[in-house]
């Protein structure tokens, strides 16, 4: 939808530099919240023996997701091209309904507020929100 401005990119990169050390914890917390607050998302994980929010599988998945987000930060100047393979994965193999990208994005933002209350200012919030929306769009690119 909206293009990321130079300010957005700068803000996202600076914030990511601050928080990326905790990216595994962020990912685990975001996935855990998603499974609790939006229980319909558990339908994608029926193959997990333990679908509880703090299970090893959920934690591992959080780590995987945040590695993808971190990768997207490095490809922020061309997300569509940079996330092409991840899009193919989500489109043809995982087939996650793109509505769920919004849900996970929302929970990532909530976790940022919980873990970094002073750094997650409204200016950071708007740029990160736009960035996650752009990532979601790039992930949905190959769907149809």
């Amino acid at each position, binding site marked *: *939808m909206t293009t990321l401005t130079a300010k957005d990119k700068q803000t996202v990169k600076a914030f990511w530099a601050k928080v990326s050390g905790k990216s595994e914890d962020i990912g685990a917390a975001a996935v*855990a*919240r998603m*499974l*609790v*607050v*939006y229980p319909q998302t558990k339908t994608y994980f029926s193959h997990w023996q333990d679908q509880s*929010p703090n299970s090893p599988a959920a934690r591992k998945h959080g780590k995987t997701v945040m590695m993808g987000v971190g990768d997207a930060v490095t490809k922020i100047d061309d997300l569509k091209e940079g996330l092409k393979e991840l899009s193919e994965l989500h489109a043809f193999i995982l087939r996650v309904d793109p509505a769920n990208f*919004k*849900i996970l*994005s*929302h929970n990532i*933002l*909530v976790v940022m*507020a*919980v873990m970094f*209350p002073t750094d*997650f*200012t*409204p*200016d950071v*919030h*708007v740029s990160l*929100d736009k960035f*996650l*929306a752009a990532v*979601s*769009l790039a992930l949905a690119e190959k769907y149809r």
Partner: protein
Amino acid sequence: MPENSVSADLQTESHKMVEWTDFERDTIQDIFSRIEYDVVGPAALARCLVVYPWTQRYFGGFGNLYNAAAIKGNPMVSKHGTTILHGLDRAVKNMDDIKNTYAELSVLHSEKLHVDPDNFKLLADCLTIVVAAQLGNEFTGEVQAAFQKFLAVVVSSLGRQYH
């Protein structure tokens, strides 16, 4: 349509009584007894005006909303943020009849203020973020679920009298 706004849409469910668990009731009472209305209200409204700048359309008379610093320091924004939280208090005290509690406010927002009800969801999301920042780790997934459910009922009730 803002990409990450996900507060639940209960419009179709609004004719049924909302059922609250004890945990949900306790959680809502607890949150609202702990937060400072004149801190959280202004912070949530200011955040909404920054993160979703088109919401500024309803505040033409508020003066300088030029950037985040101006919005944060704007006394009319602060005052209105506090007013909103006190408005939410009505629902906190009447959880079993939020629909009727907000009937008049719904008419006001529709007939007089002409607020697009989608905006209520945006403010609700900002309120969630601000409360999360306030409560930190105590804002667990379960607490978040209860809070978002409460806000979804409020949002639905505020949109109910639109026609």
